[in-house]
Each structure stands twice: as structure tokens, then as C-alpha cells.
């Protein structure tokens, strides 16, 4: 009988002491966390993609709550909608930012960019790029092994089997920028989605001289500066034999598209010319 009471007392004491220690530790090391952080995190998409430049959504929420202005903070996945609701919750103002999208700056499909050799190594752009120039003669062209496809957390970029080039799904792409990091050749760029999703860009990053670039790919930018002369808004610059269209200056007049001799400048989501209507009229 005695032993039962003794063990009860001993266990009771141990329990009591442990409870006191736990209580003390809790009081001493209590972390005061802003309750807003949880609320902001709930508003965020929760993709943890890192597109905002922070380690994850919680990290971004902490920054939103702690920083005074939200000027440099933007969640590319949740876009403006999310940012405005976060700003409302915190009583701050968030700048509006235009929606963006990833664009692939290479059109070198098999029929316009002749393949000069066969690669039989690992299907990884990163490995192939460290080994050699690739299956075609273009040192900047898309290798087509799909590192961007594997990196995308939203399943929005896929390699087209026919052209062997990546295609971005406009509805799913959040412009998080993971594919930009994954591409060893910097082919993918994040650009403004543009009004009515319309945009014009140079779909080539080959910096070779015109002749050499043309030899390796029919649709390469040859740096002829025809587009530069045509552009009325000074949106086009040419550096190292390569034209670049500044998306903040471009007014989508499409003049450069028509003069480009290699069709390296491409448009997206413009209505197809009235050829169809004429047909109907006839």
C-alpha cells in the first residue's frame, strides 16, 4: 500500500515540477507574432514558388506585415487582386502592377534550324549546355530537353513535340520566373502581358553577326536595324547584333513585325488579318 502512495507522490511531484518548468519556458521564450501574418498568409496563393523573391509564402507575408511600404513587394501568382486585398487588410497601399507572362525567345524548330549532330546524353538542358553547343549550329538556341517544363510548379509550360520548343499556356502562367532560372541559355523572359494579352517581342537571342546567325537558323535576328528605323516610339534597341523591344515603350503598332526580313519579331494574340472576312465577302 505504502509503495503505491509513494509512487503516486513521486510521480505527482515530477509532473508538477515539469509543468512549472514548461510554464516558465513558455512565459520566458514567448514569441510575439503579429496575428496579421497568419491572415496575410491565408490570402496568398500558397504555391511557395519563390516568384516574389522570398523563400515562401509565409516569408513574404512576414515582410508584408513588417515593412512600411509595399512598393517593392509583389506576388506574381496572386497578382494585383491579392496585393490589393492584402493592402486593404493591413491598411497600406499597394502599387498596381501590370500582369506579366513568360515568353520563349526562340523559334528555331527543326525545319528552320537544321540539326547538325545527334545528342544521345542525358535529356537535361543544363547538362547538354555544359557539354557543347547543342544539336544545331546556334549557340543560344533552345535545346528542347525541357528543363523549363520540369521546373514549372503550375504545369504551364510544355515542350511541343512537333517543334521541340517550349510553349507557354497563357491562362496558367503566373510569371513566377522559375523557368527563367531553369533555362541555362536565358531564352525565357518575363514580359508584360500587354493590353488584351497582345504583345510584340523579338523571338531570338542570337548575338552572332547577321550572316552567321542566319546560317544556323532561318528565323534568327540578324541585327539589320530595319525595325529600329521603323519604330516611331524608340522602343527598339540593338546591341550585339540583336534587337530588343522595350515593352514599356512599345505601342503595339506592328510596323516592326512587317519589316523584319527573317520574321524574328513575333506578335501574340492579335486578331488574324481580315483575309477571312474578305473571303466571306467574295
Amino acid at each position, binding site marked *: 500500500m505504502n509503495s503505491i502512495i509513494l509512487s503516486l507522490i513521486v510521480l505527482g511531484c515530477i509532473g508538477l515540477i515539469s509543468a512549472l518548468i514548461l510554464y516558465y519556458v513558455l512565459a520566458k521564450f514567448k514569441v510575439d507574432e503579429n496575428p496579421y501574418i497568419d491572415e496575410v498568409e491565408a490570402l496568398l496563393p500558397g504555391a511557395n514558388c519563390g516568384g516574389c523573391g522570398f523563400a515562401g509564402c509565409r516569408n513574404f507575408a512576414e515582410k508584408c506585415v513588417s515593412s512600411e511600404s509595399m512598393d517593392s513587394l509583389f506576388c506574381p501568382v496572386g497578382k494585383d487582386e491579392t496585393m490589393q486585398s492584402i493592402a486593404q487588410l493591413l491598411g497600406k497601399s499597394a502599387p498596381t502592377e501590370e500582369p506579366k507572362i513568360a515568353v520563349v525567345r526562340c523559334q528555331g524548330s527543326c525545319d528552320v534550324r537544321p540539326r547538325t549532330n545527334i545528342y544521345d546524353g*542525358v535529356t537535361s538542358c543544363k547538362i547538354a549546355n555544359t557539354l557543347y553547343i547543342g544539336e544545331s549550329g546556334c549557340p543560344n538556341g533552345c535545346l528542347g530537353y525541357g528543363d523549363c517544363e520540369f521546373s514549372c510548379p503550375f504545369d504551364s509550360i510544355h515542350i511541343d513535340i512537333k517543334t521541340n520548343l517550349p510553349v507557354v499556356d497563357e491562362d496558367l502562367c503566373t510569371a513566377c520566373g522559375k523557368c527563367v532560372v531553369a533555362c541555362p541559355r536565358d531564352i525565357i523572359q518575363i514580359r508584360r502581358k500587354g493590353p488584351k494579352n497582345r504583345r510584340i517581342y523579338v523571338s531570338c537571342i542570337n548575338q552572332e553577326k547577321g550572316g552567321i546567325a542566319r546560317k544556323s537558323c532561318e528565323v534568327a535576328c540578324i541585327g539589320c536595324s530595319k525595325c529600329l528605323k521603323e519604330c516611331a516610339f524608340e522602343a527598339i534597341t540593338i546591341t550585339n547584333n540583336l534587337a530588343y523591344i522595350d515593352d514599356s515603350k512599345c505601342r503595339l503598332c506592328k510596323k516592326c513585325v512587317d519589316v523584319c526580313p527573317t520574321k524574328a519579331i513575333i506578335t501574340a494574340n492579335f486578331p488574324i488579318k481580315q483575309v477571312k472576312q474578305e473571303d466571306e465577302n467574295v
Partner: protein
Amino acid sequence: MKTFKIGGIHPQENKLSTSMRIENVPIPEQVIIPLDQHIGAPSTPFVEVGDKVKVGQLIGKATGFMSANTHSSVSGTVSRIDTYIDSFGYKKPAIYINVEGDEWLEGIDTSNKLLYNCTLSSKEIIQKINDAGIVGLGGACFPTHIKLCPPSNCKIDTLIINAVECEPYLTHNHQLMIEKGEEIIVGVNILMKALEVEKAIIGIEENKANAIEYLKKITLSNKNIEVVTLKTKYPQGGEKQLIQACTNREVKSGALPASVGVVVQNVATVYAVYEAVQLNKPLIEVFVTISGPELLHPGNFKMRIGTLLSDALKMAGGMPENTKKIIGGGPMMGRAFLTTDIPATKRSSGLLLLPEKQAKRLEPSTCIRCGKCVYACPMGLEPFLLGRLSELQIWDKLEESHVTDCIECGSCMFTCPSHRPILDYVRMGKSEVMSIIISRATK
């Protein structure tokens, strides 16, 4: 018989060009001399377009600590300082020289006389090697003068000469030892003097019996130089493997060979050192094996740097019709080339033309965890794990698993029954981890 302890494989030797005399490839009309023939920063051009140069004249000066000089291998006029397309299709800086005659720079001894005596001091020898632009001709192209100045806390007591040539097909080092054995021994003496050591070991694999016999014969009187016969096993030519095979010392993970008191030099480098110190001749010629199962006349060639490899290939019987893959270097560690129309550089050691049967990579299947790669790895790593980790891009685990110790010998891939491209992944992971370590150190 001595050999290294862990791992290793026995690929077919296929030394088709054994005992073929070294042939001189004729000087072409124009040479392309790349400026990045070594590890580290490319050398900066020291001549201008239109300048007349002589054989052996300095045309590219070393930039910074980790770099080497580049010399003209011909006499003529500099026609262009531009880029050339290297064997992998990328652009690299180079100097183009139009050849006019064959006029050598004054002071270079072009007579074939053997010069035994070297009265220079250690410092003078190293300076001469530095001036001559000598790099390790075993493949890594590490500037030799840096190797000869080990960290001050390491006491060097042994010089090891790497005459293993463990790669299949390659034979030019073997032939060099037979034809230029005496010069090599003088070179060994010079290097011993430069390092101030009393002992040198020449490690040769048993499949080069006549070279072992010959070198033993000419070193009979010299008790400081020992010729060691090693059991044939790949990758015995790896620095750490060779040190273990010859001296039974183990270089710790991440440490330099100098930490166990050893400096290793390739036998072709030793010959270049002899030429530089005794004849004042900079490194302007390389020895190349051209081989392949279908090639008409596989052979060993001496080429001026900047001569196209296709010129030497013509002498070897031209490209066989059914060639599917061109490999620069040996079949184990070499890399596929896009074309043979590229200049020979200090990196060139072999040109291998493989027909479809040998060139074909078999379809990889899943890893069956047989552990063959672990058994074969000469560095005691776990290649299957390293391959998987870099495939999944888990860099921190990869670093913990000592991926930086990998010598990229390819034994794991050779032995894999599932034909998995282990080395491709490990090499990518290794370079990624290296860059992470460097960026961490610079922070």
C-alpha cells in the same frame, strides 16, 4: 605487383597504335593558336595584327596567377586576333598566323643533341618552366610552375612521374618513353632539382613491358630514380590513385598531393620540361594518338599547336565512312567533338573515331541497387547516390556526400548494368556544388 587499393575497372585495352613510330605532321599554311589552352584565365595577346613572329615567340602573356604563356608554333605573320569555334561549338579567343618558312627564335637549340647537365638553380628552373608556358599534359592542363611551388607548410620528398597511360587506345606516352627515354630521365633530374627532392618514382603499367625494360636499363646507374611496375587497372593515372599505388600514402579528401609530400607530373610534361630548360624551347608541340577500330593507320603523331587535327587524321588514313562519334582524348574521360577541323592545343591527347557499335549509348533503365558502381569507384564514393541527388538537385546533401572528390573517371558508368548516365549527373552536380562553395567563400 603494386596498384591502388579501392575500386578500379578493367576496360579492353585496344592499344591499336602500340609501337607505331611518332610521325611529324607537316606544318600547314595557317595555324590557329587558341589563347585558353590551360586552366584559369586565357592569356592576353602580346602581338598585333601584321606582326612577324618566329617559332617559339611569345604571343600570349599569362594573365594573373592561374594562367600560362602561349607561344607561336610557326614563323609567319599574324593575320587575325579573333575567335575560333572550339571542339564543342563555342567561340574562344585565338590568334591566327599565316605560315612563312620555318624560322626559329634565337637561343632555341634545334640540334638533336642530348644535353645532360643542368647547372641552373631551383628558382631559375621554375622560372624557365613558367616562361615556356608548360602545363600538365595529362589532360587537366594545370600550369606546371604552380605545381612546382607547393604550399610552404608541405615538405615534398618524392616526385612521381605518371607514365601509366591507363586510358584505352592511347599510346603516345608509351611511344614517347621508348623514343625519348634519355631526355625524359634528364627531365626527371631537372624536376627533382626544381623541387629539391632526392627521390623520384616512375610509375608504368605492366602492359608497357618494353618501356619498363628500357627505362630500367638507362636508370641503372641512377639510384634516386626508381621505375615501378604497376598492375594494369583503370584509373591508375589518377593523381591520388597513382600516389597510393607507388608510395602507399593516402591523400585525404579535399587535400593536395603535396600534403603527403608528393608531386605528380605526367611523362609528356617531363619531356616538355626537358625541352624548355635544356633547349630553351617553349611548349609548341604536342603528342597525339589517333586511333579507332575502323581507322586504316592508327598512329602516334607530333603536331605543332594550331595545326588542324584533321591534318593528322589524313595521315592516319582519313575518317572512316561509318564513324558515328569523334572523341577527343581517351574513351573513358574524353568528350565528343563536333568536328575534326579544330586546332591541336595543349589539351589534345588523342582523337578517337568510333563506329556506331561502340559509339551507341544504350537505353538507361532503373537503378537496381546492385552496388557495382560503389565497388568500382576508385575514390570510395557512392556514385548511384550522387547521381540521384544531383538529378533531384539536392545540393547540400550532395556536398555532404563528398561529390567534390569525384575524379570523373567514368568507372561507375562503365560498370553499370542498367546503363545509367551516372557520370553526366555527377559532373553537373559537382560543378554546381563547386560554384556554391566558391560563392560561399567569396562572401
